[in-house]
């Protein structure tokens, strides 16, 4: 497997500018000869589709929702980082770069992260020009707030709906290109496979979710912007439809999958309420600007929170990490919550929860100010739990939220299959082992607005896919279509007794127990034994009713669960092989005396990339070494 990262030589500050100059260009008149198949139209895919169409490329975009405006980017609440230094608090591109590399626990690529920090400022300019209604000060200037893992205020926001407003911004740009005839939008179509012809990605297969029709699409490049795989845990903050299918199908066609074990467990989510639960709801990290996290000091505490006196409370984040306090990075805040609950000091039903308390903030700035800052989040919390955070502290617990792992890409965002590009959460490149808050929106838009539009032209100019035209009658399309139809037929034909959802729940519980917030060799080995058994049960006992030729949500779900069942195994394998703790990957065998993550830089300063080697065959593990010439490897400290 060729893992040439194509990182430009020379100082990291000049890398992107130099690379942009070194890349070959496609002249404006020739751009319309190239067709891009964009799969997924969230922040990354939507912004890329619009930007590529503006440049003159022909774009066909696909999403499984009924409109591109529904993508799960929309649910991001808190904000988007940018090194604007509008607050004059010492921010700079270099500091955002440094914070992100450190926040990722030294497992990301320096050059990629630097580029991300560099274009962050352009993203804000771009979004404002489009009319994204960011929060403003009375003087008309943009407002900022702070987020975890940083000591400057560099986060831009639109109330608690930042993701929504950014997505609507790029959806508007996309709508403009659809109107202009430059993008053909295909909604309610799910990608089920990638077609590789003579080693180049040349097309995809989709299923129309309304009619069930299987369709072939040919193009000169395929871009996956299909999000993350946190739904492997079943209960997560992701939308119900989020899935790994597109990425996993690409993996099976030869794209390397990088660091699948890097998953982010977000510290502030509403705790699980019961068996019938279908998803977990995030409460924005921005709440930690004003909320204080605590648990009772005593394990046998039964009083309501308001009756517990100050000296019997343990504000454990402030105690353990005085300089970052409640704004410690997500992995650290999550593990600390788990630790407190493991000690028996948790609160609420089942004692799996901690308090996020606004009492002091309300006393300091008043209820009106708090309502203005977080009103919609407080309302959402009250609708779900029937408790008012203005009166009693929120109860929160960590939940799967984001996945840093993804398809391996080089500096040009191209996977190990030439012509197959991967952007946004679906790739692996910028966050290392832990993503800082307000960085996902930044990365999705950086990839879509600024990076891919620059690099994809280089691919067209150097590989010349237009010189070897391929259409959907090519035999490789027929072969892939046979595979797709075969899988659907197999799913429909099992005719067992259990619903796809019941298998998803069982897989999710297993993954959360064995490959969740804390992992160990024994648990992972058990999971690796159990997953194939569960898969076997699935293929013998799953029940999919109805027909493949109509709207059939059960069939959609079954296909996604089937892929999660296989993918879960690679995730556990990756977690088992990575004999260290870093960021979101915490191996209990590798921790310091006071329970902090213990990295093993000598053996694991690399990206682990998994290569598919055939059905029922163990995948190969390859590595890409990581260098840190600028941000020197150090133990991450937020104390």
């Amino acid at each position, binding site marked *: 497997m060729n893992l040439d990262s194509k990182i430009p030589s020379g100082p990291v500050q000049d890398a992107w500018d130099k690379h942009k100059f070194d890349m070959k260009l496609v002249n404006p008149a020739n751009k319309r000869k190239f067709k891009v198949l964009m799969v997924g139209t969230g922040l990354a895919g939507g912004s890329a589709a619009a930007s590529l169409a503006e440049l003159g490329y022909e774009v066909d975009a696909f999403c499984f929702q009924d*409109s591109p405006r529904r993508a799960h980017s929309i649910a991001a609440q808190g904000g988007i980082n940018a090194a604007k230094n509008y607050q004059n608090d010492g921010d700079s591109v270099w500091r955002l770069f440094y914070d992100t590399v450190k926040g990722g626990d030294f497992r990301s690529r320096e050059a990629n992260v630097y580029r991300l920090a560099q274009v962050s400022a352009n993203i804000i300019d*771009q979004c404002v020009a489009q009319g994204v*209604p960011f929060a403003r000060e009375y003087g008309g200037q943009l407002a900022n707030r702070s987020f975890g893992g940083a000591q400057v205020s560099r986060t831009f926001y639109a109330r608690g709906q930042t993701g929504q407003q950014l997505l609507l911004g790029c959806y508007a740009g996309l709508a403009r290109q659809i109107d202009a005839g430059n993008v053909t939008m295909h909604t309610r179509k799910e990608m089920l496979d990638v077609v590789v012809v003579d080693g180049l990605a040349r097309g995809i297969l989709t299923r129309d979710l309304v009619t069930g029709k299987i369709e072939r699409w040919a193009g000169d490049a395929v871009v996956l912007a299909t999000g993350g795989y946190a739904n492997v845990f079943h209960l997560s903050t992701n*939308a119900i439809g989020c899935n790994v299918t597109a990425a996993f199908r690409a993996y099976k066609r030869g794209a390397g999958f990088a660091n699948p074990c890097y998953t982010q467990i977000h510290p502030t989510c509403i705790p699980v309420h019961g068996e*019938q*639960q279908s998803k977990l709801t995030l409460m924005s990290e921005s709440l930690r600007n004003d909320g204080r996290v605590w648990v009772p000091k005593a394990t046998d505490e039964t009083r309501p929170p308001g009756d517990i006196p100050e000296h019997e409370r343990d504000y454990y984040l402030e105690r353990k990490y005085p300089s970052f306090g409640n704004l410690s990075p997500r992995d650290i805040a999550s593990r600390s919550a788990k630790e407190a609950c493991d000690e028996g000091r948790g609160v609420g039903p089942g004692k799996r929860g901690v308090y996020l308390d606004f009492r002091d903030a309300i006393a300091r700035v008043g209820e009106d100010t708090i309502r203005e800052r977080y009103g919609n989040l407080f309302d*959402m919390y009250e*609708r*779900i739990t029937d408790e008012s955070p203005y009166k009693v502290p929120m109860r929160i617990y960590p939940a799967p939220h984001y996945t840093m792992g993804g398809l391996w890409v080089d500096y040009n965002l191209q996977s190990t299959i030439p012509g197959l590009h991967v952007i946004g959460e679906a790739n692996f490149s910028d966050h290392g082992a832990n993503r800082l808050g307000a960085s996902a929106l930044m990365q999705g838009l950086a990839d879509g607005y600024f990076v891919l539009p620059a690099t994809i032209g280089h691919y067209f100019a150097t590989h010349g896919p237009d010189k070897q035209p391929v259409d959907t009658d090519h035999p490789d399309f027929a072969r892939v279509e046979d595979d797709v139809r075969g899988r659907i037929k197999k799913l429909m034909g099992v005719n067992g007794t259990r619903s796809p959802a019941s298998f998803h729940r069982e897989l999710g519980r297993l993954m959360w127990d064995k490959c969740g917030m804390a992992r160990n060799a024994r648990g992972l080995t058990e999971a690796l034994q159990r997953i194939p058994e569960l898969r076997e049960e699935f293929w013998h006992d799953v029940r999919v009713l109805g027909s493949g030729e109509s709207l059939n949500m059960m069939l959609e779900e079954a296909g996604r669960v089937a892929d999660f069942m296989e993918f879960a195994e690679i995730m556990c394998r990756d977690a088992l092989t990575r004999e260290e703790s870093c960021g979101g990957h915490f191996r209990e065998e590798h921790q310091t005396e006071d329970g902090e993550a213990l990295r093993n830089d000598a053996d694991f300063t690399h990206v682990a990339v998994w290569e598919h080697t055939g059905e029922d065959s163990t995948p190969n593990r390859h590595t890409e070494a990581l260098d840190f010439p600028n941000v020197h490897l150090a133990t991450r400290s937020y104390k």
Partner: protein
Amino acid sequence: MNITVRVWRQEGPAATGHLETIEATDVSADSSFLEMLDLVNERLISAGREPIAFDHDCREGICGMCSLVIDGVPHGPRRATTTCQLHMRSFTDGATITIEPFRAKAFGVLRDLVVDRSGFDRIIQAGGYASVNTGGAPDANAIPIGKGEADLAMDAAACIGCGACVAACPNASAMLFTAAKVAHYGHLPQGEPERDRRVTRMVETMDAEGFGNCRNYYECEAACPKEIPVDFIAELNRDFRRATVQGGSR
């Protein structure tokens, strides 16, 4: 709790639909409305019957994918709440709940409770944007926008495009949806250059898609899960009049 649901079943766009009565026992009061439907579906599947199709995705009230008319009200009885954020504790034990799709000429039923809302996308494509290409934008702080105007733009932009306004309107008008987008740009300097063209084209498209006319029933505002006020409709009318009658040039 134990409840009875009367739910709309329709095999496809051309099929005749009907209300089916299903008993739902042992539903947790802490479940969301859609989790109740998940449970009903699990049991239908066990009994070898096809589950009820309904649209949903984020289940946190922001994507706008969920719909449903619950006991005659789009998104159900709780104000400012999407169906996915509605919880069973809002209903009484033993209740009979009627569940229907969003109904409008412009929203055809695809199956059961799933409807086609692509008309909304086409309204946005007719001008719900500011025409700026990627790259070359001036510094974000170069365009100062007062907090009051920025807040109004945000109030309008909060629309999730779910279609409850259309389902609630006796005329199935998409006026609140369209007005929210027009007002979002109307309160920002970025929207100014295309102000007249935007409102004209969006209103024309709304009519062409088969949405009805606004008669100021204000049912849309009452049903809107994001509480978009009808004031924006007045703003749209003002803009539309200026653009068409007075012959706007922007």
